[in-house]
């Protein structure tokens, strides 16, 4: 099951040139871009691990693309996303965030039903991948 998170999530994965164009746009807006990675695809897992510090004061997308290639080489079987942070007073949050690398096989999620008091059912989802410990989830 293909994970859909963030901007452009229903488009096919962006090519490097498209990513570069997006980053150029972010830099024009004065946003700081950064890369994060994780192997826990749960939608409520918002805290991914940083791949290097956020790149403030960047002027050209080449630096991010270079880091992205490095990150893909280091974590080929993990989700990697690109974030663009807007530090404008009053905004101070992400403006853009999308996935730039995903594992070759995405097993998806299991729906779990829990019988609760009075015949009510609680639903939850669990990623098949997270059955295994961190670091071994996407062989």
């Amino acid at each position, binding site marked *: 099951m293909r994970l859909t998170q963030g901007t452009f999530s229903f488009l096919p994965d962006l090519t490097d040139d498209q990513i570069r164009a997006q980053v150029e746009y972010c830099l024009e807006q004065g946003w700081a871009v950064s890369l994060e990675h994780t192997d826990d695809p749960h939608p409520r897992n918002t805290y991914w691990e940083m791949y290097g510090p956020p790149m403030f*004061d*960047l002027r050209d997308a*080449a*630096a991010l693309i*270079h880091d992205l290639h490095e990150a893909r080489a280091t974590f080929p079987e993990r989700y990697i996303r690109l974030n663009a942070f807007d530090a404008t007073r009053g905004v101070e949050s992400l403006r853009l965030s999308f996935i730039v690398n995903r594992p070759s096989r995405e097993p998806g999620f299991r729906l779990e039903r829990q019988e609760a008091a009075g015949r009510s059912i609680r639903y939850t989802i669990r990623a098949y991948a997270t059955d295994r410990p961190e670091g071994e989830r996407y062989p």
Partner: protein
Amino acid sequence: MTAALGRPDEMQPDLAAALAASPVEDLLATLDAELVGLAPVKTRVREIASLLLVERLRREVGLTSGPPSLHMSFTGNPGTGKTSVALRMAAILHRLGYVRKGHLVAVTRDDLVGQFIGHTAPRTKEVVKRAMGGVLFIDEAYALSRPENERDYGQEAVEILLTAMEEQRDDLVVILAGYPDRMEGFFRMNPGMRSRIAHHLEFPDYSPDELGAIARLMLGAMQYRLSPDGEAALAAYIERRRAQPDFANARSIRNALDRARLRQANRLVTQRDGAPLTRDDLMTIEGVDFRASRVFGQSTADPGPAAPGEEAPR
């Protein structure tokens, strides 16, 4: 020979049109107007401009070659315009279409070298990232390598720079600047650095005439002018100042002008005889404003210790 490359001979690039469309002449005219002297530097800028132009024409007719490496080293005595040229070089390369963004990131050893183990690499990499698409200017680059301390982290910064200069040649132009003798030592310590830098530009010392022209340019920018007597005094000042040991070319001239402005202001305030000041008075620097300098107070053979406010010899 074109046939061998599978291209028809009659495909002729229009050099004249490309020249007319290129900003080269415009750029060089600006350089000439803003920078006095520096003939070798201007020649090199012209060569680089021509090369980039020819590269573009070659691409049009289907001849391919990688982009030329434009890493540079600027060596010259204090005050010969290394930093001024570096600032302009980013804009020049941008207008010639070699770098994409045309910003200049000016750093020194402190910005690259960390304070403890593991601190240097991220610092240097961050600086390199910031400079991508533009020019990385490393002032006093010889400070990066301190041979007397073998545990110094400067060497690590040099190695990361070398990798970046090689791998990210398309994204980054590195300019190293420093005084000739120390840079010579730096390159001897780091032969890899020397071979990766294609352009070694030497900044010659200015002649007295050029220094005079620089002074007039600076005064013009500050909206001052010299009286005829002031001109003569300035020429005499330059001649004497040049003979002193801590002479720093244009920087000394700028300091001299700043002091002349002080004396002019003081003269205007203290020596008025009640007549109203004219615009002319406010603009004009007289000979006495220079002649009050300590440079005139002693023989040139014995310059004596530097006066307070003089820049330290570097």
